[in-house]
């Protein structure tokens, strides 16, 4: 905030969880059809404080504590959404979205197609995800692939406070269902200037976080700051990384990936979910489809292993580490 111009946009220096809270407040104020529902979102303000203060401000009718029932939350949200409301449903942790999987797979994502647009489900499902915070079992799953493989729902995942608010508002504005994944490891890990006003970040567009020429690092969520750190480290060793934060996991920004890899000829994908079936494989496929002749080395994937996210004593061994990312970069460079 150094120039007079930028000062005109009022901003706050806030964390991601605050930005998410702010995003919901902004929308609840503007759009009376929006409402929040979920477990502990009301009086308690959410187990992570994402909805802190919102029930006080907007009432029990807009910010609703539901019974402990994920299929119930999503299933009733379908009914609310087709009948003119815009529910923002919280699933307390992404690992607890599975009981609602049937409703999401067979209804949330299919109602528009089934009725040729007569009915639609403008529903946002918020879900904190990812490991590294020493949470109990199941709390740390990264389940994006189960939804990017599901036609009819968009999947977004911010890495910064700014994108968190802008993507959340975009998700709520979207006429279709959006799964909004919140990297809980990044909830409070850093702050950023975030406009106090209404703004959106376009769904479907990734962002180049670091420009570089030697190798493209593609990632999202809580891995972004980690990958940026590694990129800066290897820069010291003369390797010039381009870092892409996908931000939207479906529909993926194929153009951005292709353009970058066609420049660098090398790519490493980094994500938390298990390797097999991970979004990394789709990105490899996109590169195969768009940039085959540009590739100078096989694409590397650094990801969770093909094991359930382990208990907290081992979770740091499960997650991609700087060492593993480093080795992958070396591998594509030295190939």
């Amino acid at each position: 905030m150094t120039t007079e111009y930028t000062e005109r946009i009022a901003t706050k220096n806030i964390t991601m969880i605050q930005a998410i809270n702010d995003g919901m407040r902004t929308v609840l104020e503007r759009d009376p059809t929006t409402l929040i529902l979920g477990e502990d979102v009301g009086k308690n303000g959410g187990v992570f404080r994402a909805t802190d203060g919102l029930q006080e401000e907007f009432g029990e009718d807009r910010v609703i504590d539901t019974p402990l029932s994920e299929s119930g939350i999503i299933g009733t949200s379908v009914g609310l959404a087709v009948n003119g409301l815009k529910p923002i449903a919280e699933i307390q942790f992404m690992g607890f979205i599975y009981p609602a999987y049937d409703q999401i797979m067979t209804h949330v994502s299919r109602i528009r197609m089934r009725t040729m647009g007569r009915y639609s489900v403008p529903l946002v499902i918020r879900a904190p995800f990812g490991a590294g915070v020493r949470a109990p079992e199941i709390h740390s799953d990264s389940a994006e692939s189960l939804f990017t493989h599901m036609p009819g729902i968009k999947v977004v995942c911010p890495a910064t406070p700014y994108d968190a608010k802008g993507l959340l508002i975009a998700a709520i504005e979207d006429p279709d269902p959006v799964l909004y994944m919140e990297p809980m490891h990044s909830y409070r890990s850093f702050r950023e200037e975030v406009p106090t006003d209404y703004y959106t970040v376009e769904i479907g567009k990734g962002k180049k976080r670091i420009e570089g020429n030697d190798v493209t690092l593609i990632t999202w969520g809580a891995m972004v700051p980690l990958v940026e750190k590694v990129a800066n480290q290897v820069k010291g060793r003369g390797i010039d990384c381009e870092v892409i934060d996908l931000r939207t996991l479906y529909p993926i920004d194929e153009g951005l990936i292709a353009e970058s890899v066609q420049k660098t000829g090398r790519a490493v994908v980094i994500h938390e979910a298990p390797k097999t079936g991970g979004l990394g494989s789709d990105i490899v496929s996109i590169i195969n489809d768009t940039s085959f002749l540009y590739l100078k080395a096989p694409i590397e994937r650094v990801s969770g292993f093909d094991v359930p996210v382990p208990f907290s004593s081992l979770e740091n061994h499960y997650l991609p580490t700087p060492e593993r990312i480093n080795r992958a970069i070396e591998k594509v460079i030295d190939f």
Partner: protein
Amino acid sequence: MEEVYPLKQIIDDHGNLVDKSSKSLITRELVQKAYYHMYRIRTFDKKAKSLQRQGRIGTYPPFEGQEAAQVGSALALEENDWLFPTYRDHGAMLTFGADMTRTFLYWNGRLEGCQPPEGKHIFPAAVPIATQILHAVGASWAEKRKGTKNIAIAYFGDGATSEGDFHEGLNFASVFQTPTILFNQNNGYAISVPFERQMNSKTVAQKGIAYEIPSIRVDGNDFFAVYFAMQEATRRARTGGGPTLIEAVTWRTGAHTTADDPTKYRPDGIGKDIVDPLLRLERMMKNEGYWDEEFIQSTRERIEEEIDDAVKAMESYPKAKPEDMFDHVFAELPEQLVKQKESYLQLLRGE
């Protein structure tokens, strides 16, 4: 629990009025409406079965035997209410105003079959069992929030009561006191599994106690029993009294679907003592002086004509377009999907 939830009847198998107190509520208009709709959907159902046998539509789940339950419930709804059916409730849907051509189209594998007439709130049949119960709770919750008097009805079978969504739906309806009718057609079987292996309770109605949802068990083959129970339930719902669970005890006369063979699992002769609901209504009409040959004949002719026209319309309907598979997945097609669509259409065009 059968004592607590006795089977409420207005007319018996012989068409006799057993609940005299209802006599004043039964008008000629109501009786004729009941007859018209029950005869209409019965004829539709017969036609659908025969079309299926001739390969002119796909697999079809007949609702024969359940006409009183479906018509009795749907006729008690108001114009702006919401209806959430299963695959076996096309009788209720037609009664509530679904288009007949589109209903045939549905069973011909066409998305157009899922579109209700403009302004009418009829959801497509839910295929995954019990999932629609939550939708009905949500949609009626939205009506309550808007301050209207509109309600929603969820249709579901005896088998559906075993799914988690049944339970979660009833709990939400109860906690948020939504104006929802939870309408159970207990037709004795879930495919091959009889009621008494589906659950260890003698009634579905008693399950309302778990949620403090008022419930009633009615003879589902008695149009009037269903209709009056529905009236009470809708009145409660419209006046802030919350949900009601209605168990309509009925009987699936035929197979689960045209692909099913009930002789594999149904004991010989079972259900033979059950009097067809339409026959029961006819008996009642004769007993109580509502039988009017002229009305009957003109009704039947009108219906046969309507159905023939609908079949013709279905069969001359423009062919399904591959574009439709892509175009409605999102409000706006993402680039990837545009590419998939274009390249497929190119191939079809021989490019």
